[in-house]
């Protein structure tokens, strides 16, 4: 438990200093998107990793956040700082109402239902042309401002987004080490036993589903105000799958794992640009190989690497003494 907080402190320091090394470069841009992806992965991990409930439609909550915030600010002149909580709140209400029937489902039925929800929302983005601008997207979304300072340009966007991301991570770590986090993990391991212990599994699942959706919506709103443009193609089924991949590759139930997964999947296209047209093949292959040989994800991989190194050191000491 202490370790998590120490790690978080260290991580925060790295996040705060990192952009100084990349100033003006394109990589800073990638880091901004990495922040958004991390936030989304952490949010999904609460649901998938802790409570063990799959969602193949999380891009919809991200998209709803982005569109609600975007439409309010671009078409109705609402201040972004007002639009963000409105987006979060309305997505929260949607998720809460949806959560009760949808979380009654289990396994692949849940996968299919969340997938269906994602597709419905995607279609709505496309079809409500008068409101969302349809498939060609919504333009003219303003950036965020505090007083006279506008969050424009990579450096400011970086700190804005990573501020929210770090907050999300901290809250998730807190939650993990509380009665709610324990109850969620208990549901994951044995729903029957957790209910016998008095855990209201159904309500708790709905709660965490809602929380996860709200965080995703906040990420969506930030995304909209950073990009100043949104279009439906960013919120389709593929992105939902990519999010699940981030969480699993990173390591189920590990907050820092979610960061690692998001970081890897954000960076991977940059690295794969070297192999050009073969990138999609290499990407598929990497997914397979990593899942096969790192069943506990990157977080698990890092942990076992650390374990491997430790006895090695001890062994050399023993050897020296012998």
């Amino acid at each position, binding site marked *: 438990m202490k370790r998590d907080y120490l790690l978080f402190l260290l991580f925060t320091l790295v996040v705060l200093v990192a952009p100084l090394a990349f100033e003006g470069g*394109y990589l800073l*841009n*990638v880091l901004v998107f990495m922040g958004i992806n991390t936030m989304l992965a952490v949010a999904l991990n609460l649901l998938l990793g802790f409570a063990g409930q799959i969602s193949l439609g999380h891009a919809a909550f991200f998209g709803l956040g982005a569109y609600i915030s975007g439409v309010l600010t671009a078409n109705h002149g609402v201040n972004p700082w007002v639009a963000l909580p409105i987006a979060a709140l309305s997505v929260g209400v949607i998720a809460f109402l949806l959560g009760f029937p949808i979380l009654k489902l289990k396994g692949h039925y849940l996968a299919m239902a969340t997938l269906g929800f994602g597709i419905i929302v995607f279609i709505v983005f*496309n079809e409500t042309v008068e409101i969302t601008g349809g*498939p*060609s997207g919504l333009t003219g979304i303003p950036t965020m401002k505090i007083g006279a300072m506008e969050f424009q340009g990579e450096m400011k966007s970086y700190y804005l987004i990573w501020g929210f991301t770090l907050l999300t991570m901290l809250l998730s770590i807190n939650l993990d080490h509380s009665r709610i986090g324990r109850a969620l993990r208990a549901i994951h391991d044995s729903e029957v036993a957790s209910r016998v212990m008095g855990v209201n599994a159904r309500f708790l699942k709905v709660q965490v589903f809602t929380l996860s959706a709200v965080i995703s919506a906040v990420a969506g709103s930030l995304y909209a105000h950073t990009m100043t*443009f949104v279009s439906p193609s960013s919120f389709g089924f593929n992105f939902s799958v990519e999010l699940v991949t981030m969480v699993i590759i990173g390591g189920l139930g590990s907050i820092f794992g979610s960061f690692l997964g998001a970081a890897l999947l954000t960076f991977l296209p940059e690295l794969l640009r070297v192999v050009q047209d073969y990138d999609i093949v290499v990407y598929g292959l990497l997914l397979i190989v990593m899942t096969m040989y790192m069943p506990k994800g990157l977080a698990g991989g890092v942990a076992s690497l650390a374990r491997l190194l430790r006895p090695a050191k001890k062994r050399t000491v023993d050897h020296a003494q012998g």
Partner: protein
Amino acid sequence: MKRSAAAFCLFVFTVAWATLCQASQPIRIGALFSVTGPPSFLGEPERNAAQMVADQINKGGGIKGRQVQLIVYDTQGDATKAVQLANKLIKDDKVVAIIGPSTTGETMAVLPVVEKAGIPLISCSAGRKITEPVNHWVFKTAQNDNLAVTRIYDYLQKKKLTRVALLTVSDGFGASGREQLKAQAAAHGIQLLVDETYGPKDTDMTAQLTKIKGTKADAVICWGTNPGPAVIARNAKQLGLKLPLFMSHGVSSKKFIDLAGDAAEGVTLPSGKVIVADVLPASDPQRKWLISFVKEYQKLYKVEGDHFAGHAWDAMMLLKGALEKGDDTPAAIAGNLEKTKEFHGIGGIFTYSPTDHAGLTKDAFVLVEIKNKDWVLVK
């Protein structure tokens, strides 16, 4: 004193050296195309054509003695990726101008980025809102949708086919076409009886066509890109729909005729002149360029050059013209692009001005009909 003299010498030397280097360094041009992903039917020919032009320029000794380096990134049709990659081109690759992206959505996403950085962008997508309102840095080569719509509506008006059913694809291309079709209908005295859509990956459109069959429409206009319209042509034949079928310039390639087979017979569509280059009258000013473009493209890539490839060809040639006229700074390029007059491209004859960054008139399109698996000009 001595030290500042030394510093001055060093400074002069550095500047001189840098200038020297620059002269021998290639001109870096960025390109964003959706080479993979759903709009790859646009991105791939565009990339091919752009590369073709760049190679030709370099073989011919470059522009003012300097080679051209084309840096192409694949956006996969995703707006988020397009923005990231535009940033990469500007910041890491330090390009002087960008051509692409392939779709209107991506272009709109990239627009604020190039505007802020002050880098000229020549988009290869058709959406009208890219250049309306005019943005100093943003140009485009693809013909505006509204010109294609005007072509069809003019013809329908002439033939007195005024009750029309629409069937458009629900992606950026279809949505933009649908918007224009609805906007211009009244001005041409056209009444829209049906307004249906279909998904880009749908495999059966008989339901929509059945609905259309149940109305009193005189003609059907379908707005989409392959393979959807081919499915629609086949479905229409299956249902025995006798109405004249109009398509968009999105399917003006041989591919459509291959896919739709017999069902393609009699389909009419507006198209850039490139596919009918050989049947154009010799007096047509574009003819010479078009034929050489088609030939060269075919030689290199084994397929016929279509007008999507033409968009990138035009963009590269426009850029070449602007570079030949002046400096290779982004500001100079944008300024010179705006002064382009009567450039005979693949998509049409371009004349840019401070109030018009699309540069084409409705003459850019001709109306063609498919007869015996080939194109015939409709007079």
